[in-house]
């Protein structure tokens, strides 16, 4: 029923050696095709129902510059439009706000307030994949990303060391990002009342250092597994300058005021990531699990499975399921009570609350020629949380304090070797 693509023996052996020398993703592609250039391109449309839409074209070009040595560069463009929750909760009356650019906008009674926004992002990055020794590879990367109010400059280095007859690869990686936040009308003082808050402190900094230690192991002829531990430490301005928190009356639950959110100025995060790649006679399963925890009180489980089902003629379909569940950050509050002592930190950003994400999708891939691949995928993502939390007060009990977020993910990809 299925056709297996035959490669020249020399190419297959080279690919075999090459793939096991490094855990570098996609590295075998150029070798399989025997070309110098490898171009990957994609167009993503991410569209939330009634909220944000992101259109993101990107292209990655990779060139073989020596024996087992590659240089690659990536260009990503993002166009974001639509509406994003401002943090205030729905209440029994219409709510009017001022956007960072000074425009008034109103949320009807019973609806979660959304702020319209529009932004573009341009990101470029490069990577140098170089053999340092017979058993050692280095991956060195640099990245630059800019949007209206945010700039990120990053560098990374990873060493992959093959041991055990190249059946085991030990990896160690470091990355550092120096980001700058430039809020549209200055950064507000955290937890200040929105109506009277002073803003200032433009060009706030945020620095992040990541460390990764991993081991990749050939289990048998059909199975590959990877186990990683990673640690990330971020410090600086980690608050969202546009997010606010509703202040509600302690008896009636009605919204009486708003304050800007405030997050801690540091965050330490740890994660354990496990992956298994298993090949059936022709089909392939990718299975992964991540447990992540941080000092904000967030702990999360992520499970992901992809089943690549081979069709005739080199085509395939790939169903995908992803499950994600997180606990809330310690300072997450859907609202604060008027007159009560202010906490040190507070955010009503739903992404810091108890949250579950389920994604289901299907991908179809085909190869019109030996050196070109097309694929298209459609996925549906649904996020849900505590829509009626037990600590809701008065009129809050009639409101949905955590409406579901639903989104469609559409992607078309094309890759070719020259």
């Amino acid at each position, binding site marked *: 029923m299925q056709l297996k693509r035959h490669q020249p023996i020399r190419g297959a052996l080279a690919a075999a050696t090459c793939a096991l020398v490094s855990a570098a993703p996609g590295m075998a592609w150029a070798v399989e095709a025997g070309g110098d250039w490898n171009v990957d*391109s994609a167009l993503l449309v991410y569209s939330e129902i009634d909220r944000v839409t992101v259109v993101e074209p*990107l292209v990655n070009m990779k060139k073989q510059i020596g024996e087992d040595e590659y240089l690659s560069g990536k260009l990503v463009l993002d166009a974001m439009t639509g509406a994003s929750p401002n943090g205030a909760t729905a209440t029994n009356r219409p709510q009017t706000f001022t956007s960072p650019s000074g425009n008034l906008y109103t949320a009807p009674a019973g609806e979660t307030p959304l702020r319209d926004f529009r932004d573009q992002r341009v990101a470029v990055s490069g990577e140098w994949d170089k053999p340092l020794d017979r058993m050692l590879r280095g991956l060195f990367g640099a990245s630059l990303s800019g949007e209206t109010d945010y700039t990120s400059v990053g560098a990374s280095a990873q060493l992959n060391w093959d041991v055990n007859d190249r059946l085991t690869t030990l990896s160690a990686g470091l990355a550092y990002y120096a980001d700058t936040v430039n809020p549209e009308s200055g950064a507000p003082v955290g937890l200040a009342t929105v109506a009277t808050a002073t803003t200032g402190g433009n060009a706030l900094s945020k620095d992040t250092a990541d460390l990764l230690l991993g081991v990749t192991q050939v289990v*048998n002829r059909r199975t590959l597994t990877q186990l990683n531990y990673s640690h990330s430490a971020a410090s600086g301005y980690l608050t969202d300058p546009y997010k606010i928190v509703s202040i509600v009356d302690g008896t009636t639950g009605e919204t009486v005021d708003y304050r800007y959110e405030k997050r801690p100025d540091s965050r330490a995060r740890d994660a354990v990531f496990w992956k298994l790649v298993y090949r059936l006679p022709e089909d392939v399963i990718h299975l992964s699990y991540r447990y*992540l925890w941080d000092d904000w009180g967030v702990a999360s489980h992520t499970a992901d499975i992809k089943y690549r089902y081979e069709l005739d003629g080199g085509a395939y379909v790939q169903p995908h399921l992803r499950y994600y569940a997180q606990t809330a950050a310690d300072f997450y509050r859907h609202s604060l009570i008027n007159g009560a002592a202010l906490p040190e930190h507070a955010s009503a950003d739903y992404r810091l609350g108890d949250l579950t994400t389920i994604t289901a999708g299907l991908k179809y891939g085909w190869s019109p020629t030996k050196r070109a691949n097309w694929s298209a995928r459609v996925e549906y993502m649904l996020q849900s949380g505590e829509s009626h939390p037990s600590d809701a007060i008065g009129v809050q009990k009639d409101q949905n304090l955590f409406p579901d977020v639903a989104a469609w993910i559409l992607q078309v990809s094309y890759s070719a070797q020259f």
Partner: protein
Amino acid sequence: MCMRLRIALLLPLASLIAGCAFERVAPWDRDLLAESKMQLIPDPLESYLDEHIYFSKEASSGGQGVGGGGCGCN
């Protein structure tokens, strides 16, 4: 298809339970492992885009690698 799926789900679990019984796969037997669809990240752009989406929508990110670039979406 159903049987195929069942085998597909059970075999990796079985190989896990087998634990540390790693086979010494000879270099000339590594052809299957070398295929692009058997790479840890078979589609780097898709992986990059998914990282970007979930970084923007959840309080967790990373775990599989370092590098890639930041954004102000979270």
